[in-house]
């Protein structure tokens, strides 16, 4: 029996829609419930970030990096600071490196919590979302004591950090980690191994490793496809080579390698690894002055640099061209969510309406970073 095809219907998902994770518009051609074409249309959140950076001094760029990936602002600060420091050949004190790793890993946990919670919401489970937000809140509280801000921190500066750790911070992080680790099991029981959740995500939206690599997908999405690639391990920056941690990869436990469940589960395991790194960093943190290497005026020598770091969403890279003035000549950001979104059209073809949003959610995009 042949398949009957009707006319295709064009459906606009977004820019105002509960599950587009920001102001994204998906132009979808559907045959009934089956999707035949998905075209992501971006730019609703474009704020000329890169152009702005050509008009402000190097230290003033940092608040802009906050506003790119507002879910993981610490990691964005971190990447930018590391890039400029390498261009200026500054070596920051040990204590600063440790503080940076601690806050970056905590922010990675917070970012993954948001991604996984919102993913539960995409699939229709409301309670895990609230559980994860409850725990993310504790990380934000920690950051609030650290720098006064809860979302856009402006904390990691070129050559150092804005404030030293407040008294009692290390104990507070320890108690958070002790509280948080058993909670991961709770999420697993509630959502990860739920039969309906596995039905909805296992074997759905499979991204084979070749496709992932050819689209330049990075981070947990790439690792979900079974490719072991993590900048923290493969191209260590800062002091990541000092820590002992594993890189989780998708194994196709609930279906095929590279399905939505794998991408989801990689993030879940990564949170455990982040906890591990944070514990090691807390143990090894030396005393010292965090401000001693802050330069009076940032004036990198002429030249250019491309440096990538591992943000919760993947390879976050900054390309900076310096003409020797205190203002960057050109600054370009390579955003991991942008490449992740570009693969959506390829992997969601032939799936159903409900699956497209599940696949989109599994890619964990942040529109602030895509549009910049």
């Amino acid at each position: 029996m042949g398949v009957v095809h009707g006319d295709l219907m064009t459906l606009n998902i977004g820019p105002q829609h509960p599950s587009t994770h920001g102001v994204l518009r998906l132009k979808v051609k559907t045959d009934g419930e089956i999707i035949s074409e998905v075209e992501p249309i971006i730019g609703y959140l474009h704020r000329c970030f890169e152009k702005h950076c050509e008009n402000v001094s190097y230290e003033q760029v940092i608040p802009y990096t906050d506003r790119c990936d507002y879910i993981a602002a610490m990691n964005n600060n971190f990447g930018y600071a590391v890039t400029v420091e390498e261009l200026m050949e500054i070596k920051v004190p040990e204590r600063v490196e440790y503080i940076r790793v601690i806050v970056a890993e905590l922010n990675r946990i917070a970012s993954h919590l948001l991604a996984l919670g919102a993913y539960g919401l995409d699939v229709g489970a409301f309670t895990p979302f609230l559980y994860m937000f409850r725990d993310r809140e504790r990380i934000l509280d920690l950051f609030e004591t650290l720098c006064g801000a809860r979302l856009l921190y402006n904390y990691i500066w070129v050559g150092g950090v804005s404030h030293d750790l407040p008294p009692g911070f290390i104990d507070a992080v320890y108690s958070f980690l002790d509280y948080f680790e058993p909670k991961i099991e709770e999420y697993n029981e509630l959502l990860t191994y739920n039969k309906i959740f596995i039905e909805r995500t296992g074997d759905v939206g499979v991204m084979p490793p070749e496709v992932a690599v050819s689209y330049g997908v990075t981070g947990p999405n790439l690792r979900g496809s079974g490719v072991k690639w993590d900048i923290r391990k493969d191209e260590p920056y800062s002091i990541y080579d000092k820590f002992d941690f594993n890189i989780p990869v998708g194994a196709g436990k609930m279906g095929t390698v590279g399905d939505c469940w794998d991408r989801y589960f990689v993030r879940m395991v990564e949170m455990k690894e982040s906890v591990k790194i944070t514990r090691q960093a807390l143990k090894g943190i030396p005393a010292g002055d965090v401000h001693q290497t802050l330069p009076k005026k940032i004036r990198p020598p002429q030249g250019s640099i491309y440096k990538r770091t591992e943000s919760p969403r993947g390879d976050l890279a900054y390309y900076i061209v310096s003409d020797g003035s205190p203002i960057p000549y050109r600054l370009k950001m390579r955003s991991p969510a942008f490449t992740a979104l570009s693969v959506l059209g390829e992997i969601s073809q032939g799936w159903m309406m409900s699956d497209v949003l599940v696949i989109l959610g599994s890619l964990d995009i942040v529109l602030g970073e895509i549009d910049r």
Partner: protein
Amino acid sequence: MTVDQLINWLPFGTDWPVITFLTAVIICALPVFLFIAVYALVAIYGEVKISSFMADKVGPMGQGVGLHAGKWGLLQPVADALKLILKEDIIPSAADKKLFVMAPFVVFIGAFISFAALPFSQNTIIADMNIGIFYILAVGSLSVIGIILAGWSSNNKWSLYGGMRSVAQIVSYEIPAGLSIISIIMLTGTLSMQGINEFQQGTIWGILPNWIIFNNPFSFIAFFIFFISGVAECNRTPFDIPEAESELVAGAFTEYSGMRYAFFFLSEYAEMFVVSGVSVTAFLGGWNSPISGFFNSPGWGVFWFMGKTLSLVFVMIWFRWTFPRLRVDQLMSICWKVFLPFSLLNIFGVGIWILIAG
């Protein structure tokens, strides 16, 4: 008291049959409407609070006087209802006006008239029809027509998707639900709701209550098939596919606001009660006390019936705040490939059971 008794009791008698009939209908319908409204307020409050406790929150709270939600947020459902009544009623200009206006009432009627055959106790039933359970199954499906009307008339692609999905859903869950009821009818030999209740009086071996769910292993399975299909009938998670707020915005109800939306809301909760009530009557002994002869008077019958029914409503709320949502084809494959064969087997099983056990 049933409608028939009421008609005989009314003074106009047979001289004015139309007036008598209408009076009786109004006398019966008004309390039911009030009951649904009050129950919906309680259920909404319950859902908000239960979901909050499940999600490690406190839910609506308020202290002191003023425009707070009252103690423990008790006034929250009243505020919700007030808001829905006061909101602007928007009819999209592109909508098919007649159908758009009609749809919420069709949905509500489906849930509302089912109450006529629900036996609250030995003597509290509006109409003890000899086809009671068949009647409820039939009019319960009426509300789906309302959802399809809403989806079609809104002239909105999301609504259309919601309407289409609810059609796919009804053809899936109605059949296993109906077949599980058939196995009950074979056991009891009656379609009357009161007849089914009376069948379940007494005990099995002096220990277990003589409820149909405990009668034989097949009816035990039938209960779960019927109840899960019932959850699908109410469009509750994990089967809230026509509504699917993270995919279809609000599905068939996207374009509705204010009082019309409130009617959809009301009928969802009313339907939860009906489905639970039918499950209780058909499987869990209805108004029979769990311990035979223990508080088994008609007054306590209401208590047992309400208690059991509200427990099942609680289970539905529990489902909603625990499970993700199924995809529409997964619901269909569960209903057609799992429930349907099992309910057919049940019918055979019950038949053989009746032959052997007498």
